């Protein structure tokens, strides 16, 4: 195989309009969620292990540091979910124009900010 294979997109040279920001945040939140999944498994494990474990998880969730971590995790999940749904909608061919893309991106921001605030209300 040739060493210098052609590249169709040089991602080192690109500007960031709104849909690009939506996209990169989707990526960052996706990577975060991979680690969040481990935390959630841990919580599931502890909370189901015994009534003592369940009580420990509840007590832990009352701690401010846990709450911040939880909120951050919910924020990543909420954002990835909303942006992911937009992705799926665009995959079936809706809103693929430049205007549609910008509008969808705005919607993603508005809806995820609302969800993230609600998640905060829920946690505290």
């Amino acid at each position, binding site marked *: 195989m040739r060493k210098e294979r052609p590249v169709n997109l040089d991602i*080192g040279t690109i500007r960031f309009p709104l849909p690009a920001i939506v996209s990169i945040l989707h990526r960052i939140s*996706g990577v975060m969620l991979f680690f969040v999944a481990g935390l959630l*498994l841990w919580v599931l494990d502890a909370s189901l292990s015994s009534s003592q474990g*369940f009580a420990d998880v509840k007590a832990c969730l009352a701690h401010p540091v846990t709450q911040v971590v939880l909120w951050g995790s919910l924020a990543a999940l909420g954002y990835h979910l909303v942006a992911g749904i937009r992705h799926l909608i665009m995959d079936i061919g809706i809103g693929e124009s430049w205007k549609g893309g910008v509008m969808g991106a705005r919607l993603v921001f508005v809806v995820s900010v609302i969800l993230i605030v609600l998640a905060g209300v829920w946690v505290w």
Partner: protein
Amino acid sequence: MVTSVTTLGRSGLSDWLIQRVTAIIIAAYTIFMVGYLVANPDLTYVQWVQLNQNNWMRIFTLFTALSIAAHAWIGLWSVLTDYITVRLMGPKAVPLRIVLELGMIVLILAYVVWAIDILWGI
């Protein structure tokens, strides 16, 4: 067709499809769980165990865990092949990417085993 040993579906098209199907399963589970927890703010241990002991719930959780495994595999593979490249980092990118991919695979498999262990150990 381009195939790669470290992709999950062995081709871009099947990866693309798996990514979408798994996204929908994880989304359904997320919405269900958040709905359940919001609806039951005073959840007790007994209720929680009963929910997760139900075989339908076990299957739902297991499918979600498997979906996250596949989804994350494909997703993180894309991320690693975009950034850990020879063009951006020089020749050391190749061994680094392989190490990161293997680490990722080990962690994903550990998650799946752990999930099964939790679900059938209740």
